[in-house]
């Protein structure tokens, strides 16, 4: 089974984010980057499928040079080889633009299965995988909890809302977006890192790929949301405090 995992490099969770002078993106100096966590689960699922069914796992990443660190980690964890689409202009592309680059870079691989995380930690659009499936003309399913590979087809467990699930069968090749937390991630090891040094990384310059269409949505501005106080202390008698808290839970936290 040939599996491609599309991974993204994002700023480390909990990074302190500063808005850059253009007001359109964050200041990238001084940030550390890591694999987008949902993609880490997609990679893990791919590695487990490979362990079960044999085959090959290929990691694909679009992004600047610093992405090679994330690629190396994917290789260290067990991916067999990688494709790095080198580009510095990700922020100026929309989902369609990113997905079309990915599609162009991987279509000749003729993979049986393409996996990716269900969304990215930075943009959180949750569409790249689905759009990639459209561009490749293959079926897809999202928010996948479990994958059972059969001969020429797969059966997946989709998460629906409110604790419901559903099994879906589809032919291969197919694309799945993987739910976070469905398995235990493995840690990178010294041995893995040393082995990764000898694995193939194919570098593709974005310029060598077909020109992406003009973006149809543009990011005009980013800004800090209205700052809520660090800890809102709720005062009053027990009944008053309870009533005030319920109000917050309903309209601010939105859990009631």
């Amino acid at each position, binding site marked *: 089974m040939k599996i491609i995992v599309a991974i993204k490099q994002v700023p480390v969770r909990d990074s302190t984010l500063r808005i850059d002078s253009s007001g359109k993106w964050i200041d990238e100096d001084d940030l550390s980057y890591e694999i987008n966590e949902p993609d880490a689960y997609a990679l893990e699922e791919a590695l487990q499928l490979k362990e079960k069914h044999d085959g090959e796992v290929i990691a694909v990443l679009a992004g600047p040079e610093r992405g090679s660190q994330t690629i190396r980690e994917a290789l260290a964890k067990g991916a067999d080889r990688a494709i790095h689409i080198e580009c510095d202009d990700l922020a100026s592309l929309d989902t369609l633009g990113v997905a079309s680059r990915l599609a162009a870079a991987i279509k000749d691989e003729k993979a049986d299965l393409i996996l990716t995380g269900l969304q990215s930690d930075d943009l959180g659009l949750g569409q790249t995988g689905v759009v990639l499936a459209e561009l490749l003309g293959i079926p897809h399913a999202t928010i996948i909890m479990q994958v059972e590979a059969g001969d020429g087809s797969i059966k997946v467990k989709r998460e629906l809302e409110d604790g419901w699930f559903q099994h879906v069968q589809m032919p291969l090749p197919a694309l799945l977006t993987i739910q976070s937390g469905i398995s235990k991630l493995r840690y990178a090891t010294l041995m893995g890192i040393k082995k990764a040094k000898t694995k193939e990384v194919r570098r593709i310059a974005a310029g060598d790929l077909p020109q992406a269409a003009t973006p*149809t*949505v*543009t990011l005009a501005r980013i800004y800090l949301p209205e700052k809520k106080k660090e800890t809102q202390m709720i005062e009053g008698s027990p*009944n008053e*405090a309870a009533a005030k*808290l319920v109000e917050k839970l309903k309209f601010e936290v939105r859990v009631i």
Partner: protein
Amino acid sequence: MSGVLVILEHKGGSYNRMSWEALAAGQQIAVASGQPLSAAVLVSNEGGSDLESFTGEFANKKLDKGYRVEHALLKDYTADGYISALEQFIKKIDPSFIVFPHTYQVRDFAPRLAARFGQVLLADLVGLRKEGDSFVFVRQLFQGKLNADYRHTGSGPCFVSVQAGAFRAESLEAGSASVEAFAPELDATAIRSKPEAPFREAAQTVDLSSAPIIVSVGRGIKEQDNLPMVEELAAALGGELAASRPICDNGWLPMERQVGSSGQTVSPKLYLAVGISGAIQHLVGMKGSKTVVAINKDENAPIFEVADYGIVGDLFEVVPALTEAVKKAKGA
């Protein structure tokens, strides 16, 4: 190309609240842009289902037009079926805005549908406003740490989905609208995925890690006999009961309900800490929670450092009051 189209979502004939919130967002765009508002629902037209009453529910909202997109192959959700049906439908009525509730199902097909039109879905909006001639769509980045204003610059229809709770369904205006049926042409062989019936997981061991609401209790509860009071609050909120280590050490609750470095790591939407002081072993297990509420009698308890909302008070008074207030709010 004109008009605002809202795609409603239902399960077994009942609409979820997010559909009405999407309709509210649609109304807002319609009013601001001066364009007509329509809504559509995808249904199966076989098996004698009462289609009229089915669409009746949205016909009494303030709409210019209602649609039923009907086909036998729309009985069960499939991405291929929905996308094909909506593609035909949208081409026919040619709206400028298509609004979805940001549900799991929408996340599954809407991006692909938008791509058919050369568009990108503006997903998970928390707000929108008109600026000049065009709309500004607000969505969150970096897990809510930043907000972003997006504009739609393409020439085709604008696809958006709205976050749960971002628009008030209560603000919907009533009205009446005629409902028209639309029958797309669907080919069974073009629907590649074969869904099975949805199911719930059989009662499994407690899985705190995926619980959206957790009410957690600590040493402040004093005695095992006091636990039911907190259990009741958890039940009222529809959440799981959890505890800090001392409670589980005492055997008052099973170890699998322990949150912290030696227990589970949780990241619920709401973590309500009752009588928990907040030792580091506990904090590391729940720091990923989206919202933390702490109730503790000691105003210097470290838990307040990580809490979003805090109540300093006697938990034996606050918890029952809170349970009542939650029940009241849910009942209303």
